């Protein structure tokens, strides 16, 4: 009974290697069984340490890291790529969002829808009599919405630039790859990249060097006119008649 009271203290002593409590030390001096028990506990904890230490400090075989590196080189990192499942889920989500979008689902925004219609309904139609005339209204939009006509400079929205303000560099084809490599490396260094890719571009372009707005080539409306066949017939009639006379004369 007395020994059992010291059991927890014995285990704690063996586990932590702490100093003896005076009470426990006194008991151990007079109890051989508890001394043996303490030795056993200490041996047990030491064995656990030893086995664990041996196990976790084992070294892998020599070619382990080389093998891992070889496997890494075999495959590209896939984190930046879309997995098929994610791609499918993303497409489905996009489809649902597009379908549920108020502009596409129903005319819940009549003002915007009306504006869009007004802008797109002015189409030209070539009538059977050869005269082009403009129609407006939903009828025209529905019947021949794909007919496109060139915009006049006045109706074209201002600020649409055909030429780009981005820096462009002409390089020989065989140096293109090297140039891309250079740019890609420099992109990591903002200051260098800015100095190289945007050399001395003033924020406000002067009027002389400003890129002029290029208007697209406009093609005039085609008008089909019937040929003046009667005049042609009159001219040719004389020729044909004279030719017939020659043939008739020769046959006689």
């Amino acid at each position, binding site marked *: 009974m007395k020994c059992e009271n010291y059991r927890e203290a014995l285990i704690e002593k063996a586990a932590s290697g702490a100093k003896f409590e005076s009470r426990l030390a006194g008991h151990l001096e007079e109890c051989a069984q508890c001394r*043996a028990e303490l030795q056993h506990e200490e041996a047990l904890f030491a*064995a*656990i340490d030893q086995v664990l230490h041996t196990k976790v400090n084992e070294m*892998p075989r020599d070619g382990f*890291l080389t093998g891992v*590196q070889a*496997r890494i080189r075999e495959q590209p990192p896939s*984190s930046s790529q879309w997995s098929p499942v994610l791609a499918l889920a993303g497409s489905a989500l996009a489809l649902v969002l597009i379908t549920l979008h108020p502009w596409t689902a129903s005319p819940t925004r009549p003002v915007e829808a009306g504006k869009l219609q007004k802008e797109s309904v002015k189409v030209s139609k070539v009538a059977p009599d050869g005269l082009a005339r403009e129609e407006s209204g939903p009828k025209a939009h529905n019947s021949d919405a794909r007919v496109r006509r060139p915009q006049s400079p006045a109706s074209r929205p201002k600020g649409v630039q055909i030429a*780009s303000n981005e820096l462009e560099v002409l390089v020989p084809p065989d140096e293109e790859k090297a140039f891309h490599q250079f740019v890609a490396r420099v992109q990591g260094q903002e200051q260098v990249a800015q100095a190289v890719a945007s050399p001395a571009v003033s924020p406000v372009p002067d009027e002389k060097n400003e890129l002029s707005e290029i208007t697209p080539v406009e093609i005039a409306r085609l008008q089909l006119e019937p040929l003046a066949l009667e005049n042609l017939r009159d001219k040719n009639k004389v020729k044909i008649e004279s030719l017939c006379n020659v043939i008739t004369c020769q046959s006689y």
Partner: protein
Amino acid sequence: MQELVLIRPGRKVDTELVIELDQAALKREFEGCLAECGTLAFRVARSVVNSASDAEDVAQDAILQAYRRFERLRDPSKFRAWLVRITFRRALDHTRASRPREQRETLWAVAVPRPTAEDIAASREFRRRLDEAMETLPEKSRLILALSAMDGHSLEEVAELLQLPVGTVKSRLHAACKRLAEKLR
């Protein structure tokens, strides 16, 4: 007349070339980390898995998994801790998957003569029982036990790896040892 190609260096180009360069840089960085931590991954796996060859397989898989997710690791200084967690998790999964269904006999119930620490440690039976006892411990305690037993890992380093206070590591280690001993007694 020489042919010229128009390119726009100011624009961020997602060409194959740039992707290749990024991947090459990523590989170099990862291989640098791997040279430091490859053995650590094996050792963590070995602390859970019974055979060395299985531990190598587990460590290799864990390293490859880490490589695939390497881009997502924002703080490179946490690579060691990150790899330890991945490997440990993978090793646990491996052990669970390969665990035999039949129940093993609980041989530690049989009374044995009092052997020395060396006798105990040398016993294959003891190692088997220790492995089984380890499996009953909570995962956090197992990892602390394994990392603490590794050469060159002080309690402070284990605490840093696991992002825990040193006192917590110390108390969990002590409790885990006592619990193991209880199972093996």
